[in-house]
């Protein structure tokens, strides 16, 4: 094509065995002139080690999030990418697709956007790149007419993401896909309309392996677990030891258990389940012999986030075990999330993630605020400092004043959805 820009730097990314996005986009540029200009601008970034996008806000009617608007700082040079926005599309839970669904996204992308899709963004969503101020609306309407939905930017709930769960994994302890869909649909307004102090992310993993990568990347990781005993098939233990050797079982199964709750001798493997922390290591290694128990549910954690702005934060344990099998279980989770959001939204500072909020007000106040009791599993160890304000010894309480919790707890908790 005559007006395709020279890209000597990007061309160097066409060499080598890993698939090259440059090669792919160059081919797309033959039918989508904007993609050629996109590569032209990117080439300029590579040459000058400088970025040429300014971000702003563009909303579809009825939505407060879901579009990342980008304007080129050098739009006179590359007019076809002067406006080059991304639509954030909610992905199917578990990232499962039919080819029909993918082709539908391709058709919409080709008609209304640049023909570039990213599968998937760091949040888990489908990114449809390259629509302008007009066509972004057309892309959004086309997506929604076909049943897709968008959302998740600004001070809003983010698109959820989850592992493949029971769809293809024997280790999954709850229905990650089902719960992801339920939470997305239940909280769809929070996903579309930014009303929080800042973003809130859920990520759902069926077990402690955390294939959804939730622990420091979501405000509320939901991790599958169990509370009865690990199921042991001793015949399979024997078979495993025959293949790998008894020493391997001692060193790499029993020996790598973080609480040393596995003993292996005389060809028999035993587990002290009271000391098991459900970390999954032994099950990962001997998956034919060991399985999670039958009394399954989830562990809820709270407060994880990446660096912006006070530094990285782990999530910490909030609810050690919660059943997650029935609609009632799911509704109970929704009620707890509503209590957290009410308390956080009421008292948090602007741009304060829930983990930062907890750090500022203390976990004790947070538990009071959302109506949860303290549990030793919430901490790795009790406090070491002795400066404690026992509220039972406050002057008011000594004179018979009742214990006051933050008023959010007294409000009627919003129950199952759908009844307003």
């Amino acid at each position, binding site marked *: 094509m005559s007006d395709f820009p020279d890209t000597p*730097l*990007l061309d*160097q*990314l066409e060499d*080598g*065995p*890993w*698939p090259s*996005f*440059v090669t*792919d986009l160059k081919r797309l540029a033959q039918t989508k002139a904007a993609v050629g200009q*996109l590569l032209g601008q*990117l080439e300029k970034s*590579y040459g*000058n*080690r400088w*970025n040429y996008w300014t971000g702003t806000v563009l909303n579809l009617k009825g939505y407060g999030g879901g579009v990342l608007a*980008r304007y080129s700082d050098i739009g006179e040079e590359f007019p076809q990418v002067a406006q080059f926005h*991304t639509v954030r599309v909610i*992905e*199917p839970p578990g*990232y*499962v697709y*039919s080819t029909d669904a*993918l082709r539908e996204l*391709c058709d919409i*992308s080709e008609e209304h956007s640049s023909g*570039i899709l*990213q*599968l998937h963004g*760091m949040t888990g969503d489908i990114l449809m*790149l390259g629509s302008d101020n007009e066509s972004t609306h057309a892309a959004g309407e086309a997506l929604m*007419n076909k049943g*897709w*939905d968008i959302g998740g930017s600004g001070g809003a709930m983010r698109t*959820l993401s989850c592992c493949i769960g*029971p769809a*293809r*994994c*024997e280790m*999954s302890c709850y229905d990650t896909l089902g719960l992801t*869909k339920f939470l997305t649909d239940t909280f769809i307004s929070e996903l*579309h309309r930014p009303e929080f102090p800042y973003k809130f992310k859920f990520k759902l993993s069926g077990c402690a*392996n*955390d294939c959804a990568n939730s*622990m*420091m990347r979501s405000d509320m990781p939901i991790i599958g677990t169990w509370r009865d005993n690990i199921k042991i098939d001793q015949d399979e233990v024997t078979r495993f030891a025959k293949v790998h050797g008894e020493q391997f079982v001692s*060193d*790499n199964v029993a020996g*790598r258990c*973080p609480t040393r709750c596995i003993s292996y001798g005389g060809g028999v493997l035993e587990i002290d389940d009271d000391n098991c922390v*459900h*970390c*999954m290591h032994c099950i990962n290694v001997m*998956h034919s012999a060991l399985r999670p128990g039958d009394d399954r549910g989830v562990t809820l954690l709270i407060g994880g986030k990446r*660096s*912006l702005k*006070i530094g*990285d934060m782990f999530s910490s344990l909030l609810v050690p075990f919660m059943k997650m099998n029935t609609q009632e279980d799911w509704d109970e989770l929704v009620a707890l999330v509503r209590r957290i959001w009410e308390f956080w939204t009421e008292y948090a500072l602007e*741009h304060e993630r829930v983990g930062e909020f907890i750090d500022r007000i203390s976990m004790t106040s947070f538990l009071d605020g959302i109506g949860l009791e303290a549990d030793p599993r919430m901490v790795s160890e009790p406090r070491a400092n002795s400066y404690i304000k026992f509220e039972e010894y406050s002057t008011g309480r000594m004179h018979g004043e009742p214990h006051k919790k933050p008023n959010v707890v007294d409000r009627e908790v919003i129950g199952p959805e759908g009844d307003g």
Partner: protein
Amino acid sequence: MAAPELAPRDNGAPDYKKYLHPAMARNYGRWRDHALVRPGVYKHIAEDGEELYTVRAGSPRMLSVNKIREICDVADRFCEGHLRFTTRNNIEFLLTNADDVEPLIDAIENQLKMPVGGTGHSISNIIHTQGWLHCNLPGTDASGAVKAIMDVLFEEFRTDNLPQRLKLSSSCCQINCGAHADISVILQHHHPPKPDYERITQCELPKVVGICPVAAIRPAKKKGRDSVEVVEEKCMYCGACHGQCPGLEIRDADTDTLAIWVGGKSANTRSGPSFMRLATFGLPNNPPRWPEVSDAVRRIVDAWKDGAQPFERVGEWIERIGWKNFFDATGFEFTKYHIDSYRFARTTFNTSSQARR
């Protein structure tokens, strides 16, 4: 002109049940076991004995509609029209006919030109941020750096004889949209933001002041107008303000560098989740292939392969051998900049007399 008719709102998440491979739908919640058939190929076995094969392919994440349609053609031919993606941007082709596995691999590698691998104890695909291609804040690119690094680690993607799985991530600025990983490449700024007082007038000033984690931004009159000023001694160059206000430019093409972080882990297995820690810094931001970054990553991978015991992730290996031995093994210099100086710094000090020789 009449207002355009709006499509339905609040559709919610797509109905995954329509998209499940038929064998997934049949055996939902009834899987018994799995086996790694060869690098890149899993076999999952249901309670009733049905078998589902998964062939995993590495993808650049950013795909043209042309490429996606080709991928769909392959999935239509071998997978009853169903496939999925992983958290780390791999594509998983799903099929029940064992005889089709090899022809499918052939189609993926030779028609789609995508590598099969990334399973078990291999190096899986890099999860990464957006970079110069489409972000408004990046100091570097992600797609290009990922391509260059995966070229170097290609064999480790296609094979699975490492001590344990190894996960990589990259981030284009210090906001760090990327994830914690065994090895992570992150851009590093070296100066306070440079105010552009014209552009600052477009920003919500209270939010700009409020977002600074070290209270280094305060309201000030500039050129007779309400604006902000930066207390340079307090600023730690995080760039939080830049995300809030484009008038506070944190990037500098001449001085931004890249740092490499090691030992991050999200899984709760064994030692539990861990943050990654600084390994080395000051690598040049050197497009289009960032060779210094690939060399440093390679060095860490080789030292880990050499020294780790079975099942030890990078962080667990370092935990066992100690950081002194990590710096000896990789040849990276330990400097005063490796000692934390921010919140929780004391939790990273050695508060015992225990020291390796």
